Structure formats: C-alpha cells, structure tokens
C-alpha cells in the first residue's frame, strides 16, 4: 500500500439480520493518519461495521478494504495487521495485567519487548499494577490495558469500538488525549462512540443512526448542516418553558441542553436577533419573566437530533 492510499475504504456496504437492516449502503474512507469517528447511539450499526472490517462477519452487499486488503478475500492477512478493541471488555479478568499483555503478544507472534516502544506511553500508566488481576482494575485502567493489548503487535490501523462507553468524563478525556498522540505518530484510527461531545476530538466524523450515515464532515462543519436557526433559552421553570416553546407557531424543535434549552426556529430567512427578541417577549408574556434568548451556533448533538428525525417507532 502506498502512503497516499486510503488505509480503509468502505463502499456501499450492506448487512441485514432477518428483518433488521444493520447497515444500509454505507460509504466512507479513512485517510492516512486520520482519526475518524463513527458517532451514534446503540443500534446505529457501528459494531456490525467493526465486525465486517475485522473479518468476523461477512457483508451482504458492497465491499470494504483495510490497508488495501479485501475484508472477504484477504481476511487472514488483515487480522495480523489490524489492532482491534471490541466494545465489551475483551481481556481475561483472571489473568494479571502483564499476563494479558503477554498473551496478546504471543497470539500475534511477537513479544512484549518487541512491542514495548509502541505501547510505552499508555502501558507505563498501568505498569505499576502489572500483577493485579485485569478484572480488578478500574474502568479507566481496563481501557488502557485493552488499548495496550490492541497495539502490542504494532498494527497499521486501529479499530476501536466504543472504547469510552461507561467510562467517567475525566477518564474519557484522558483516553482521547492518548488517541491524539497515537494519531500524531502516524497511525490511522477508526473509533466509534455514542458520546456526541467526543466528536470534536476527531479529524472527521460520520454521524450514524439505524445503519445509515446522516452526515460525514469535519466536526466544525457539522453544525452547518443544522436546517433551522438555533437559540439558547434560559428560563426559571425549565420544563414549563420547554412546553411553551414547543407550542410556538414557528418551532422546529425544543430540547433541554444542560442548564439551558435549545430552541430551533423554522424561519431561516429572518434576522436571528429579531427572532430572539420575539421569542423572549412571548415567553415573558406567558409568565417566564426572567427569560433570556440568544442566537447560537448549532453543535454536533443539535445537528444529530435534527437529522435523525423522530425516534424509532415500534411496529405492531
């Protein structure tokens, strides 16, 4: 593979399980030394995609190559060159930290010593606990061990399926710092996450929902896909204000966002400040005397919610 070639190419990939469409006509590529994020909730198809890319599952339609190798034809060659961290804790809880690492090194025909330089920045943080059972590690430490095991054979690409799920906000942030370092060293990384706030840490992201891509772009440009004008609203009784906003004639959406409400207005041809003044006046006339309304730029979560449409209904 030449350096300019995309290390991962997915073309019109499809997969269904009985009636459920897990992946529908999925197309994207990861560029060399790119940190590419798949952002979406459970059921988006992220894990199905990882299983196909790691040659554990066959696609129904379309094709995919990893490091120029075909996921169906060249499955044996791919496995040796990919570092994969599955979504569920993948280590042996009864083996120690060091035993897990030795095991994964042996499976890939290498040794901890040979791979040490690659994993050192991460492994050094857990090395003081090398004799502890992996099952007795905290969430953040388990994650660092799993990443070390995925890197021990010095793979050419990293595939990480929800490495930060269930991990606290601080450990999540530290994990993304590690990924940034790995990317800087030249590694291409595909990472999935259900946390919208992590999308900003990627070079590019694909927003996914129910097997489909809603948008692919650099994080800063995703907000530009928001189809309406967006406002932040502060009002005393948040839930009452939310109901009031939803009742407004030009409302596109109204959702709680932390300590504020985000209100979408369909009138994209009007001056945002004029709409803000009008919404503020309307809220105040309905008894929300301290209501404040400010035009804001939509974020990734705003955009995701606008593009995903209504949550899935249940058929009879």
């Amino acid at each position, binding site marked *: 593979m030449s350096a300019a070639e995309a290390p991962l190419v997915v073309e019109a990939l499809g997969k269904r399980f009985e009636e459920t469409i897990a992946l529908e006509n999925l197309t994207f590529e990861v560029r060399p030394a790119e940190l590419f994020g798949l952002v*979406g*909730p*459970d*059921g988006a198809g992220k894990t199905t995609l990882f299983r196909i890319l790691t040659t554990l599952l066959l696609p129904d339609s379309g094709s995919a190559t990893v490091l120029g190798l075909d996921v169906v034809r060249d499955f044996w060659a791919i496995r040796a060159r990919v570092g994969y961290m599955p979504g569920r804790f993948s280590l042996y809880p009864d083996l120690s930290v060091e035993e897990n690492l030795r095991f994964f090194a042996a499976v890939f025909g290498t040794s901890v010593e040979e791979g040490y330089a690659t994993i050192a920045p991460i492994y050094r943080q857990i090395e003081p606990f090398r004799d502890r059972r992996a099952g007795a590690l*905290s*969430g*953040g430490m388990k994650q660092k061990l799993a990443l070390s095991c995925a890197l021990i054979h010095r793979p050419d690409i990293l595939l990480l399926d929800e490495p930060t*799920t*269930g*991990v*606290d*906000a*601080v*450990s*999540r*942030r530290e994990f993304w710092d590690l990924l940034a370092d790995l990317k800087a060293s030249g590694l291409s990384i595909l990472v999935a996450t*259900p*946390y*919208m706030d992590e999308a900003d840490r990627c070079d590019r992201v694909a927003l996914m*929902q129910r097997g489909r891509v809603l948008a692919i772009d650099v994080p800063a440009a995703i907000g530009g896909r928001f189809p309406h004008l967006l406002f932040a609203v502060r009002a005393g009784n948040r*839930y009452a204000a939310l109901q009031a906003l939803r009742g407004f004639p030009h409302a596109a959406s109204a*959702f*709680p*966002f*932390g*300590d504020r409400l985000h209100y979408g207005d369909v009138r994209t041809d009007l001056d945002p400040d004029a709409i803000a003044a009008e919404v503020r006046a309307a809220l105040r006339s309905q008894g929300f005397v301290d209501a404040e309304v400010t035009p804001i730029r939509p974020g990734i*979560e705003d955009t*995701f*919610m606008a593009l*995903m449409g*209504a*949550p*899935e209904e*249940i*058929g*009879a």
Partner: protein
Amino acid sequence: MTPAIEVQSLTRRFGDFTAVDAITFEVRTGEVFGFLGANGAGKTTAIKMLIGLLAPTSGQARVAGFDVLRQPEEVRRRIGYMSQRFSLYDDLTVRENITLYGGIYGLTDAEIRERGKDLLDRLQLGHAGDARVGSLPVGWKQKLAFSVALLHQPAVVFLDEPTGGVDPVTRRQFWEYIYAAAARGTTVFVTTHYLDEAEYCDRITIMVEGRIGAMGTPGELKRQFGAATLDEVFVRLVRPAA
C-alpha cells in the same frame, strides 16, 4: 416529612480498602437526586448498600423509612431498580415481562392486568404487548424497563446509568419520564456519565475516592467552584492537579 433516603456515616471496607468512607446525606421525597463520580469512586458499592444487596461495615442507611441492614425485605418492597445492564428479559414478550415483574413485586393478578394496561397506554405501546423485548429498539427497552421498575409504585427508584447508549432525542424523552415520576411523588436516585444530565437533577452529589466531594444543586456547585459547567466542576474534583 421523613426523608426518602437517610444516610449516616455509611462505610464499606473490602479488606484494607475503604470503598465508601463515612458518607452522610439525605434525599427528600419526590426529589431527583443525581449520584455522580469517577469509575471506582464507590458509587456502585453505595447503591448496593442502599438497595439491600450489600451490608455496610458501619454507619446506617434508611430507605423509604426502613433500615437497609435490619429490614432489607421492607426496603426492597418499596424500591424499584433499573440499570443499563440489568433490566428486562429479552426472550420474553413485553407483557410477559410485566407479568413476571408484577409477580416478583407481589402484585395481585388484577393489579398486574390493570397497571400493565396503564403502563402500555402511557408508553403508547398497547399494540406491542406481544413483541419480544429483544426485538425493541434500545431506547424503547430502556423506557419500558423504567416503567416496569415503577410497576409496584415504589417510594424510591434507583436508576444506574439508565441512558447509556441511547440516542440523544430518546435520552431527553427518558428524562421527561423521570420528571413525571418525580411529580407523582416518586423519589429518583440516578447515576449518569452524561454531565449535561446532571443539570436536570434537583441536587447532585459527586463522589471522590469513597467520600462525598461535593453536594448541592447544579447552580450551587457551579458557583462554589466558579465553574461555567458541571463538566468543569467534575474535572476539578476528580483530577485536582490537572
């Protein structure tokens, strides 16, 4: 009024490791109380003691007016519990799950029929009673699990990361259900890793290494730490050096 949860110097040690270190707090009836902390801070251990699954080493806790150590059966009758990991049985239908849990909670057949119907009506799931739970989208499964945890009208419901992996719209709908339950007088004790959700709680506590690092309304905590967001409060408490 007696608080829904009263915790006094509650402590749990495992060997020479103190997982929960003399925590004291109260949760008022009908309050939405957020219980936050880093992984390994002692949240799970504390919850296990509050729902009567783990005996404290010392200290006391009363839930719904009963002592968790001496009257665990009385406590269990008055609480509901759901988590991302443990909720409903995938291989049973929606209605079978309701019947099973209704039975476990000691409801009569008539109560199960009546409340089961109410529950399905409220969720607008009447048409899906015979669907296998495993076939439902994740968000629906979580909403259903929450409603089933309320089937026996518990005084207090414990929600352990109820919105993990759920899409952002459904996550917000879930919080509207939480508010509705609290408005009916149910006390809600909830853990989450989404710090924007912590803003939706009446009060929160942030556990740090087995102790309560901070407690108050979201606004109080932000003022106390001079922080713009709860995310910032959390980072400062959990990694003071960073």
